[in-house]
């Protein structure tokens, strides 16, 4: 009897992954408290774990869970009304419910689930919460990850994550955060938070290294999944498609990023046969959607467009560097940053020759924020090398080597310095 039970348990886990976010979202609409909603959802899960191994899985597991959770919710509300007269509002709503008779559970489940899920997304990323809290809550409520999984994914002790989530729920309750999609005025800013959370999760996964917990790279998949879900919930938001495009295209390079002995491979040196064309196609399609919605100049859309330039090139020499330089210029106008300028310089050099890039890089040498940034002298060294100014190039490579904390990178830079020839007389 043990084997069938565990088979059912695995099926229940799979149902949970598919249904939990919508379940919590729907319950939050009813009880107006994310923490309570999650508790009720988990109570329903416990009930499923008890009943389904015996009765078999229901035809519509999502509706079963929602129905079970709702009955508990109504019970809870009744109890609260009996104990505290303050909940008159809920009491009135309950009377109306009861007057209308037993609700049709399937109809209620189908009722605007999309909107509820979107509301939950915005709540999990509410500005009253710290970024870490937003990330933890998003992965928990929308990703269905356990506290342990979140802790391992972010290399943080489990009790820390558990506390973070508890505090986040309390903060939301105390702030009386409304369960609604932000209005037109707030929308852009609130959406930016959501996208930043998703992209943060993606980057955490993308930076995972061999020998680390295998759950870390799965963060890329989770982020992609969240992004795609968001694209379905908010299909008219161009930056959502922009972010999805950026993630799909970045993820497309995952298998080409590492060499045979585990060393990192730079984009221009990667074997493009290992780029995932399926993800590239999806990324380009998402980018097109963003552009069709008039969002070509959004931050994520611009970054995705740059990534798309690389993705479209069959070989490095096919890269449209002129377009990349123009895109960096747009990006710089949107969010000026010395790093963006440096990248623009690299693109200018590739498109119009090293002198064009060096002009811009020379301006950046006085940038205080780039003083300790090893890529600045590294790029400058490369451009000087290409112009035949070897002595100056060597100095730059050596400076870059002294600034980088990565041993392999340092070796590469010292090699380049050596190639410049011996120090002059």
């Amino acid at each position: 009897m043990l084997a069938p039970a565990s088979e059912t348990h695995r099926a229940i886990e799979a149902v949970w992954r598919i249904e939990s976010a919508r379940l919590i979202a729907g319950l939050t609409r009813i009880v107006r408290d994310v923490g309570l909603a999650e508790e009720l959802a988990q109570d329903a899960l416990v009930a499923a774990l008890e009943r389904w191994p015996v009765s078999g899985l229901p035809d519509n597991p999502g509706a079963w869970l929602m129905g079970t959770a709702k009955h508990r919710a109504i019970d809870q509300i009744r109890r609260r009304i009996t104990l505290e007269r303050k909940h008159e509002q809920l009491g009135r709503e309950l009377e109306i419910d009861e007057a209308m008779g037993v609700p049709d559970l399937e109809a209620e489940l189908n009722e605007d689930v999309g909107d509820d899920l979107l509301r939950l997304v915005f709540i999990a990323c509410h500005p009253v919460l710290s970024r870490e809290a937003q990330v933890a809550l998003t992965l928990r409520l929308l990703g269905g990850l356990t506290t342990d999984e979140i802790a391992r994914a972010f290399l943080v002790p489990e009790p820390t994550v558990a506390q973070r989530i508890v505090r986040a729920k309390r903060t939301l309750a105390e702030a009386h955060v409304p369960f609604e999609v932000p209005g037109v005025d707030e929308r852009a800013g609130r959406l930016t938070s959501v996208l930043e959370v998703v992209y943060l999760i993606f980057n955490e996964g993308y930076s995972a290294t061999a020998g680390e917990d295998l759950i870390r790279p799965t963060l890329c998949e989770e982020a992609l999944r969240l992004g795609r879900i968001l694209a379905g919930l908010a299909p008219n938001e161009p930056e959502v498609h922009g972010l999805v495009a950026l993630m799909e295209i970045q993820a497309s390079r995952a298998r080409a990023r590492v060499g045979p002995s585990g060393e990192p491979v730079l984009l221009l040196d990667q074997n493009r046969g290992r780029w995932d064309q399926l993800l590239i196609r999806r990324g380009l399609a998402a980018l097109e959607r963003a552009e069709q919605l008039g969002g070509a100049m959004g931050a994520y859309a611009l970054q995705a467009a740059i990534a798309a330039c690389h993705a479209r090139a069959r070989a490095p020499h096919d890269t449209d560097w002129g377009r990349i330089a123009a895109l960096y210029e747009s990006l710089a106008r949107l969010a000026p940053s010395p790093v963006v300028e440096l990248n623009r310089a690299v693109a200018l050099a590739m498109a119009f020759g090293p002198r064009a890039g060096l002009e811009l890089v020379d301006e950046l040498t006085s940038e205080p924020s780039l003083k300790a940034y090893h890529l600045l002298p590294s790029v400058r060294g490369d451009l000087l090398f290409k112009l035949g100014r070897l002595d100056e190039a060597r100095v730059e490579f050596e400076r870059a080597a002294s600034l980088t904390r990565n041993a392999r990178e340092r070796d590469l830079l010292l090699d380049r310095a050596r190639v410049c020839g011996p120090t002059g007389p």
Partner: protein
Amino acid sequence: MRVMVIVKADEKFEAGELPSHELLAAMGKFNEELAKAGVLLAGEGLRPSSKGARVKFSGHKRTVVDGPFAETKELIGGFWLWQVKSMDEAVEWVKRCPSPNVGESEIEIRQVSEPEDFGEAFTPEMREREAAVVPRIGDNPKR
């Protein structure tokens, strides 16, 4: 992880019969749910094997055999590529698929090979280099 989900053919499919309106609508809705769940990566319906061909390899010999092919139940009618957390999740989604054929159907789920694809310390510095210096707004070079 990725899975390939393979819908097996049947006699009607091989005979080139088009699916009913109801099935098309139901499949359309199912595909929409898969997409909204962030699971769907790709999917295609295939034409009957009469429009296909096989190439047999024997040593240096290559022999081309045109369809149709016999073993109907083992032929592929269509496929999906899905992104899922586990085989269990894939199974649960497949259970929700509308029955592809009248009568009996079979859908096979196969895991896509994913080689270990990360190497040593991919610091933020390396990541920027790797991406030909892909910028992130608000990137702090001091980090």
